């Protein structure tokens, strides 16, 4: 059977990601040459500053970018399956708005150090989604439309509070900080931050991996899924929790990153011509490649860093426009 072709797709994807990884390590305000990178890999003697930049800034940042792209790509593909809609993203359940609110609260009330900010953003994202799940469970049918409505309610509530906070914020420092957070950036990533969110990221991925076949079945109608013996409501809740852990752990340290969760699964399905968990992983690789290129550009096209979501939006929106004119959008 055609398993081989699938393996080649993964190998090529990982090779491109590897090249992008090297690119990301070398570019930036402090240039690290490929020779220096090679020396570090081989454990040879290099300049102390280069070593410091590599281990404490560049490497954690690049790893975070890869995790971010992978996580958003995988979570996006899971959401598109659960919601049986190719335009679904993790934002539907309010994770981004919740995290945004958490960040805004930290900026205004705790004049937040970046750890406090990350922590409240993470909690905000989780809390928003759990509230939406709770609200759904109060509904009679507990189906997809109730989930979407609950997500809209939570998102609007969070946006409302954010607007209020912005209105009372000090425009010079606080308002600017909230706005910048919502544009996303990998600039502040350090090894400590990476290690702080990693356990939650991994926990989320493990949940999704364990339930991978059952999640596959969720892409069918609820009745069809149940007739195949899947406890649709329970599996869906856990799948949402797993993807929320992944997304919240990313955006809590990077701020909002747009379009990756929508675009990557799409490209993944077009290339693989299938829709299974491996396609979800493959979408993660695609997400990582797009994000790593975007982040390298963010660091290099102007003298100061450009927020990441500006670039992902400029890549993502034209891609969507391209899909509108050329493709069957039901992929």
């Amino acid at each position, binding site marked *: 059977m055609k398993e081989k072709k699938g393996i080649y797709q993964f190998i090529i994807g990982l090779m491109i990601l590897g090249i992008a990884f090297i690119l990301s390590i070398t570019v930036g305000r402090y240039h690290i040459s490929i020779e220096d990178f090679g020396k570090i890999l081989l454990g040879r003697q290099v300049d102390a500053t280069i070593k410091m930049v590599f281990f404490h800034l560049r490497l954690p940042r690049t790893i975070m970018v890869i995790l971010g792209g992978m996580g958003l790509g995988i979570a996006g593909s899971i959401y598109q399956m659960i919601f049986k809609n*190719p335009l679904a993203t993790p934002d539907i359940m309010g994770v981004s708005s919740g995290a945004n609110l958490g960040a805004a609260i930290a900026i205004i009330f705790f004049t937040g150090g970046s750890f406090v900010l990350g922590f409240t953003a993470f909690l905000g994202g989780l809390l928003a989604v759990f509230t939406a799940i709770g609200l759904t469970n109060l509904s009679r049918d507990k189906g997809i439309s109730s989930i979407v409505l609950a997500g809209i309610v939570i998102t609007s509530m969070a946006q409302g509070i954010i607007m209020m906070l912005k209105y009372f914020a000090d425009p010079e420092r606080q308002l600017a900080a909230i706005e910048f957070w919502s544009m996303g950036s990998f600039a502040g990533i350090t090894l400590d931050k990476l290690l702080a969110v990693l356990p939650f990221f991994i926990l989320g991925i493990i949940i999704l991996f364990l339930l991978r*076949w059952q999640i596959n079945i969720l*892409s*069918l109608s609820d009745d069809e899924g*149940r*007739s195949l*013996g899947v406890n649709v409501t329970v599996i869906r809740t856990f799948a949402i929790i797993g993807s929320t852990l992944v997304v919240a752990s990313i955006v809590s340290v990077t701020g909002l990153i747009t379009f990756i969760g929508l675009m990557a699964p799409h490209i993944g399905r077009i290339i693989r*011509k*299938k829709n299974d968990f491996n396609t979800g992983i493959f979408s993660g690789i695609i997400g990582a490649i797009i994000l790593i290129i975007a982040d390298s550009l963010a660091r290099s096209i102007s003298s100061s860093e450009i927020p990441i979501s500006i670039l992902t939006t400029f890549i993502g929106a034209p891609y969507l426009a391209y899909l509108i004119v050329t493709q069957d959008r039901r992929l």
Partner: protein
Amino acid sequence: MLKVENISASYNKEPIIENISFDLNSGRLLGLLGLNGVGKTTLLKVIGGLLKPIEGKVLIGDKDILLYKSKERARYVSYMPQRNSIIYNTLVLDVVLMGITPYLNIFSYPTDDHKKKAYDALKMVNMEKYYSNNFLHLSEGEKQLILIARSLLQNSQLMLFDEPDSSLDFNNKHMILSKIKEIIKEHNKTGIISLHDPNMALEYCDNIIILKDGKLHTYFNTGEIDKDYISKAFSDIYGDIEVVEYNNRYFILRQISD
């Protein structure tokens, strides 16, 4: 094998079906007939354990269907919906493979052995050459065959089909129904199929239930009835009809008055 006792069901307050009871043995295909909105799908969902009735019981092998856990229940009953809900690129073999789900642990993934079984199920509906095709690119009739293969892999004694012919052309309608009948006979399954066309039901089903106003109007064995019986039973729901006999088969025609 299947005992339906006094079923009443509704989605909101208004009951859609009321007091429906019947028995069905294995090796038999039962056709459900009735006008739109009479509760055919509702009845199928109750029998499949997907909708809890307000009253009554569905017994499979003497056990109430609602007492089974969802995975266990899926090994006894399969349900083929009116329209499949696959919207993403999916390999035909992967669609069939979904039928193995009731036999998997919640954390496990189908094995190569399961894939082989799925391939064998495809063979039973003569679709094995399409195993690595994209499901979305198949014709409607072919898609229905793939879903039948999925139900076969699910290997349940009771197989439910909700208007599997509704979006098919004339040839495909007959192809699908004869395949369903063949499977029911060959594997000694118990089948229930909801249909719109009474002639299809008369042609392929062993038993027929006519639903009217949410109630069971008539339940008969197609082998034991004559022209007058058919005419009387069907005119109550279809109005002015005429029954004609041709080669020992009965056909229902609409009376045209001018």
